[in-house]
């Protein structure tokens, strides 16, 4: 439950009852109060009482005395400076307009802070409020100055509880709004309720007001108000409301692959396995190509893996091209390309790449890397004859790539130009060089 900042009905009644007990000893009233409000809960009733005290007419003289006693005694176990109402007590003690007995009582109460349960203090609290007023002798009391009391009891002002300025500067949220006929004196006692008499216009019962205030005074006073606009509701968004359309009845699929003839593609698997070892006979090659063409998914089941690709390229480049073309959309194609780039340069690998470039769109990084490999292979080869052969091949390959717009010459210009110059003795290199120049 929410912690209420006001007194409940029962609590208000209890507090009011205590305030009216002018014949009971103060001691008893205070102990009743403490038993009713556990420690830590006493602030709210004390606060309400303190508000009531601020309007001098609101409480009768005995009620005021009881109220002050409660305010002081509720916090008697702590240092005077820890009492939240200490300044109210001090101010009241120094209020020259107040009744002397009231000031005297407060002074005596304040002295109780110092005297730790001494007999003098006990004596004071054994009296009832009515008795105190009756036996009051103004001559025995001296009234010290405000500063003196301030120094004595509230020198170490306890740090203010954190609060916002909106609340700090709050004022009492009670305004007197006397409802009396025009021209009459509000303070006139004729408007008090006369027992037995008919209530007349403008009359009111003070006790009722006290009780009402007790139960309605909130801790917080009235502060300046901040306008906090509630944010607007977001207008309905364009596709926010759900528009319904009939959907497809996506049905569950029977798995057709159950117990099927798994010999699907067995022949091709066998042939591919053979193709890794050596060139296939033309008829066998034809068969592989035909079966792959007939069943586009067969390529995924023909037993080829990236690791085995180099063997296939060397022995049966045409089949390799066919397989790679069909795998171009598979998630594994990158792996195949990596293997292809890194295998030893040869006529067959170059042919495979060349045919692939015309058949499918290859990633340009792949082509560039492949060309770089080609060029460095040419440079590193020892055998002059083989070198010439390879250079001629690379030149033809590059010309083909350039003419077919497979590569953008600019990307590789320097590299290729250097290659042409190095091997300018070879006719194809010179031709490639001229081609490059013509494109410049």
């Amino acid at each position: 439950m929410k912690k209420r900042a006001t007194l409940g009905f029962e609590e208000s009644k209890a507090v009011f009852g205590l305030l009216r007990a002018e014949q009971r000893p103060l001691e008893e009233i205070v102990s009743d109060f403490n038993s009713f409000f556990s420690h830590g809960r006493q602030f709210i009733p004390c606060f309400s009482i303190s508000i009531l005290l601020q309007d001098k007419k609101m409480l009768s003289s005995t009620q005021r005395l009881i109220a002050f006693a409660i305010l002081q005694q509720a916090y008697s176990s702590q240092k005077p400076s820890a009492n939240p109402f200490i300044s109210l007590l001090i101010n009241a003690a120094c209020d020259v307009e107040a009744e002397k007995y009231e000031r005297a009582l407060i002074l005596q109460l304040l002295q109780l802070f110092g005297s730790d349960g001494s007999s003098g203090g006990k004596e004071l609290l054994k009296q009832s409020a009515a008795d105190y007023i009756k036996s009051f002798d103004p001559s025995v009391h001296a009234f010290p100055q405000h500063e003196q009391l301030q120094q004595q009891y509230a020198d170490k002002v306890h740090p203010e509880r954190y609060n916002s300025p909106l609340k700090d500067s709050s004022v009492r949220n009670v305004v007197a709004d006397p409802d009396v006929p025009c021209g009459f004196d509000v303070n006139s006692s004729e408007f008090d309720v006369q027992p037995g008499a008919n209530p007349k216009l403008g009359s009111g019962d003070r006790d009722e007001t006290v009780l009402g205030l007790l139960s309605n005074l909130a801790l917080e006073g009235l502060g300046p108000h901040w306008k906090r606009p509630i944010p607007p509701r977001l207008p309905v968004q364009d596709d926010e409301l759900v528009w319904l359309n009939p959907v497809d009845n996506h049905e569950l699929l029977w798995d057709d692959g159950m117990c099927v003839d798994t010999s699907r593609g067995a022949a091709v698997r066998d042939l591919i396995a053979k193709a890794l070892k050596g060139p296939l006979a033309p008829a066998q090659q034809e068969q592989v190509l035909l079966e792959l063409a007939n069943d586009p998914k067969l390529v995924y089941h023909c037993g080829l893996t990236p690791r085995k690709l180099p063997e296939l390229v060397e022995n049966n480049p045409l089949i390799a091209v066919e397989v790679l073309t069909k795998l171009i959309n598979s998630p594994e194609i990158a792996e195949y390309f990596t293997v292809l780039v890194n295998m030893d340069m040869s006529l067959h690998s170059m042919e495979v790449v060349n045919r692939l470039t015309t058949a499918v769109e290859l990633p340009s990084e792949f082509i560039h890397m492949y060309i770089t490999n080609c060029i460095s292979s040419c440079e590193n080869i020892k055998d002059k004859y083989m070198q010439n052969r390879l250079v001629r091949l690379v030149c033809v390959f590059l010309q083909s790539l350039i003419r077919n717009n497979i590569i953008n010459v600019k990307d590789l210009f320097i590299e290729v130009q250097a290659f042409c110059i190095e091997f300018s003795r070879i006719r194809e290199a010179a031709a490639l060089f001229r081609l490059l120049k013509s494109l410049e």
Partner: protein
Amino acid sequence: MASSSSSSLTVANRDGSSSASEDEAVMSVTRAYAQDALLQFQSGKFDQCLTALSECLKMKPNDPKIFHNIGLAEFYRDGCSHPKRLLDVLNDVKKRSEELARASAEQAESGSNIGGSRGSSTMGHPFSAVYMDEFDTYVATLNIAVIWFHLHEYAKALSVVEPLFQNRGPIDEKTALNICLLLLDVGLACHDATKSADVLVYLEKAFGVSCMNQGDSGSTLSQQPANPVAKSPSLPTNSSAADGPNLDSDANALESEETGEYDGAVFDMDVAQPTALLSSNDLSRNPVDISVSSVYLKLKMQLYKVRFLLLTRNLKQAKREVKHAMNIARGRDSSMALLLKSQLEYARGNYRKAIKLLMASSNRTDARISSMINNNLGCIYYQLGKYHTASVFFSNALLNCSSLRKDRPLNLLTFSQDNSLLIIYNSGMQYLACGKPLLAARCFQKAGLVFYNRPLLWLRFAECCLMALEKGLLETTLASSEVRVYVIGNGKWRQLVMEDGVSKNGNSGSLERGDLFLGSDQQPKLSMSLARQCLSNALYLLNCSESSYCKNSLPSNFFLEDNELGEVASSKNSNNKNFHSIDSEASALSVGLGQSGINGDAKEQKAGTTQELVQNSLLYYADIRNKENLLLKQALLANLAYVELELENPMKALSIARSLLELPECSRIYIFLGHVYAAEALCLLNRAKDAADHLMTYLSGGNNVDLPFSEEDSEQLQGVRAVDYEELNGGSMSAKSSSPEYTLGIVFLKPEEALASLYVNFAALYAMQGELDQARQFVAQALSIVPNSPEATLTAVYVDLKLGKSQEALAKLKQCSRVTFLPSGLTLNKAS
């Protein structure tokens, strides 16, 4: 040979060509049983089907595919009543298949190492990362996605089916087509334009190739209702020319010095891809099936295209394509096309036409259809601002749904046709519009089972809380729209006690954990804490969808949990990197498109390919989504700042208000809210000077304050509304068909009222700094605009009291019409 057969036994797989003849005999018997099981399944005799399957299982005791089909048959036999149970079976099958495939692959690897020199063709099973036939999980995975789809778990379905589409290479045509169609539906349901676009382009390419040769054979689709297996609309193609480059030249051709032969090798890229899906092989296999399904599929594709265009709000093109769809559907079932046409008119704001089309679209005796039509009519009336009519339609739609649940024998479709959770969301919106936050919240709570990953849902939930607060329906708060004054005592002792609004909301955040969402009666318990939680959920989801799509990672039972969503979900999302945001996808696509982007005019589009159309739409949609998300973010931050203020967390409120103010292209309304919230938070933090800075932005000189925003800003806020595509491209702005005849105004302060709020706040600011004269002037200006504002009145009363003018204070209190004088509720009689 022996080693090979023994190794294959352990993994229960095929024996290849090495199998002995008796194995072969066993296999053929098994195949016969499998064939029989399929036939029984197709004719709906599930008991016989299961008998046949158990025979299969005797021969191949560990075959996951048999378990898969058994699961399916049992599911149908039991009347489709336990989809979750089937999900368990399928997930189990999938797991087992993967294990077997791994084991088999490892075995093959080791086998080939040992017997590597064997020249025979029986080298066990060559390893490939692609699953082998026997252990592939495509069908099981697809079925899992299908079930999620029917259960309205679109995000989950998407996460399952999307990888299948990406790796569609090895998947057979029938399954692949089913995958595509499912992904289209799921993508559209998730509002995921990018994924739908991918499939659309892919299918269109495939279909485009085939329909050139196929033509319209005119036969209608004869569906067999008893057949629970989807038809296999395989597509024909004559693209065998695409099988590869010309390889007839000799391998030694490179050696020749002639290079010219390479020049001619031009290859048409476009036909390479479709062959992956559509093989000429199919043509020979099922010649009948194709002609049946071709038109059917063509219409279907066209309808998907329209739905995609509607999703991306490319209304101009949608109009064109829906016409095309009507043409294809002529003489056949055109109800779907009509419904889409109605949706188009709805999106264009032609509500009357939309209603007419809906009424004409179908026989309304079918509860399934009439529930949809009722719902759609409800949407239209909502947009017309006729909320009560809308509520009648929504509740009719819900009634239709519940009758659907009762009457029909269950099948899987029943689940997806029960759209009640979707309709309930609409209902919630309608309640919210009618100012019934508790009912609305109840709706959103239910709809949350489907929409839990949409930021908007959470915003709406928070709006319910705020509305409840505004209406004084929250347990812990009181209505803030009026000043409450307690009249205590009477006669000369009469006193007035003013309730202080600043403190009235205190402590509303002190709800204990665990029952944040639901009270003891399982109804949502609206509170400011709940609002805060909802808003942070929404912000989290929004940020997610901006950086990457994370739609599939939230637990669907989230409503029953109350812990920090952020932590839970972020850990689940972190491994979800392969989803791209719309922006990056769209921009990547635009690169390929070159200059013919959204600047191209409409005529150019007409001739354009589907790919261009789709890409243009994507770009346009990404732009719309950006704007919408930005607006959503403003709303979320403004709401959150407000809620934090309500919960007395000025620090958080301040930082949120600041990030609101930092948003680019922020609406002036939200900037105003940002400044006001930030200023209040700073006041609460004892930083009146900084607070003043925020308010000062509106001070034009002296004590004059500018209007913080204009009417146009309010109008702008309500409409990032659909604008026809052509107009966006600089077409004639005069024919603004989208400007709705009926505008749904936003409920917010008028500019003058906002100005008055600023005056009040200036007054409060000066008052708390003790500058009472200044405060008095400002509050007087506020009262001249809004004489009945509770805040202005209370601040004025405060200033008067502070100045000791209690009579003036009383006069002001009594003038304000929004002061409620309440009896104290206590009399002495009762007390004594």
